[in-house]
């Protein structure tokens, strides 16, 4: 009997929707040739709650808590996109102090989200220690949220015309302490992960997304900046007080999983810098503009775009002059990143697929809506 090349045939493998590496209820229908992925069909919708339909049956203010449940890792950015669009239609502007507080909340959300990314991404690659580190630091932010808003995850603290409340006494001191603490901790992560040989082998050159392909798929955020495209809505279309704050738009030309990881690591340092500036510049004054209880914006439409931790989170609101929106469209960055996944994983092994999927930092809540 001669032993030559063993003929193989393609196998269809179901991954998820209950799988620890899919970061939620995502199902991938994979076509495998041995261990190599030749086809990938993401099956989404397991978490679809009909958010856009619900919005048409609620008042503007009533819809804010629903938006928290989209990207629940960073709920403030969803609040912000919806509130921005509504404020633009209704011609409302939040007082300066509220705008600074919003930026503090948004950037704390960004750091919390990126910490979860580092934690889960490392865990996907079997670095369990880093997982515990990431959640340890995030816990301090959760405590800050709880101290200010009473909630840890779904804060709903960005309101039409302002924020839910002023920061409580002692918050500024605790926030400063967190900012001073995070930098050295990130240096620890660099020693533990960024230079780690196994981590590098699993991420460098893996899942390459060329910049022009990323733009064609409407990728955004760290996924696109990890491919060297310096597109950041805080700079491109500044909202709130971002135009008064100094920060770098972080890019990386590696276009691979490592590039996307490095962008998020550096963005956390930039966010710390932004929060410190906000705390230093924080003006006195009101935190809520006068807004009618039953808001009836005049007929029109507006598009609120926010740089969420994942990318462009946008809200397209159309009003017919009534108390409920005529249409609310929720544009989620992860949805577009998932669409690009099949092209990114083709030709890579199953284990690499887990790394590539992890490097996109998706949240199913905003994909399925």
């Amino acid at each position, binding site marked *: 009997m001669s032993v030559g090349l063993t003929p193989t045939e393609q196998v269809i493998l179901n991954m998820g929707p209950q799988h620890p590496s899919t970061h939620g209820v995502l199902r991938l229908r994979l076509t495998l040739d041995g261990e190599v992925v030749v086809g990938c069909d993401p099956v*989404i*919708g397991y978490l*679809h709650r*009909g958010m*856009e*339909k*619900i919005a*048409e*049956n609620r008042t503007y203010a009533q819809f804010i808590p629903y938006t928290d449940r989209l990207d629940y890792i960073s709920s403030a950015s969803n609040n912000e996109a919806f509130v921005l669009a509504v404020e633009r239609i209704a011609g409302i502007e939040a007082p300066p102090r509220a705008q600074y507080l919003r930026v503090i909340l948004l950037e704390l959300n960004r750091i919390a989200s990126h910490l979860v990314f580092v934690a889960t991404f490392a865990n996907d690659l079997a670095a369990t220690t880093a997982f515990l580190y990431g959640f340890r630091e995030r816990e301090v932010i959760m405590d800050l949220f709880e101290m200010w808003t009473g909630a840890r995850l779904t804060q709903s603290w960005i309101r039409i015309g302002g924020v839910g409340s002023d920061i409580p006494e002692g918050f500024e001191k605790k926030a400063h302490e967190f900012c001073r603490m995070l930098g050295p901790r990130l240096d620890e992560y660099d020693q533990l992960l960024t230079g780690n040989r196994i981590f590098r082998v699993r991420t460098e050159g893996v899942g390459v997304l060329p910049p*022009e*392909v990323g*733009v*064609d*798929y*409407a*990728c955004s955020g760290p996924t696109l900046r990890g491919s060297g*495209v310096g*597109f950041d809505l805080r700079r*491109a*279309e500044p909202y709130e007080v971002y135009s008064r704050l100094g920060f770098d738009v972080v890019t990386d030309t590696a276009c691979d999983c490592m590039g996307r990881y490095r962008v998020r690591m550096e963005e956390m340092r930039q966010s710390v810098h932004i929060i410190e500036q906000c705390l230093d510049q924080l003006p006195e004054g009101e935190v809520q503009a006068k807004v009618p209880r039953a808001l009836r914006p005049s007929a029109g439409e507006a*598009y609120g775009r926010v740089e969420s931790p994942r990318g*462009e989170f*946008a809200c*397209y609101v*159309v009003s*017919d002059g009534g108390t409920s929106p*005529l*249409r609310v*469209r929720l*544009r989620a960055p992860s*949805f*577009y990143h*998932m*669409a*690009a996944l099949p*092209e990114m994983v083709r030709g890579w092994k199953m284990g690499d697929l887990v790394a590539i999927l992890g490097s996109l930092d998706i949240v199913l809540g905003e994909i*399925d*809506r």
Partner: protein
Amino acid sequence: MIDNLKAEIGEDIESAEQVGRELRLRVRPAALVACCRFCKERGYRYPADITAVDTGSEMRVVYRLVSLESGEHVVISVGVPRTGGSLPSVTGVFKGADWPEREVYDLFGVRFIGHPDLRRILLTDDWQGFPLLKTVPAQSK
């Protein structure tokens, strides 16, 4: 931009209006693909969003194209019948149009001619009807 577009596409541009950084176009279905290609060639390479709006009296599909260099937007609206409507797919121009077109089909029932894989995306394959149409009640009584 508007003059060049009108010279190229002609009468199929029903209206054009500049609002801030947005150029809002109302386009006939026949000119949709040519219009998207025209914009892409002029730097509007980022297909930020494709969605639909049903006002109760009319329905339109809305395409938002953004130039990452200039920060300008082009917003293309195309009218479509509320039942059995169809439009040419722009997946040949933008890869990123694939999933949003599937979503508009899934929730509004608009068929995209030339789409490589037009099937439901958020709802189950055996779902009946298109829930974001105004004819579908938000809550069952």
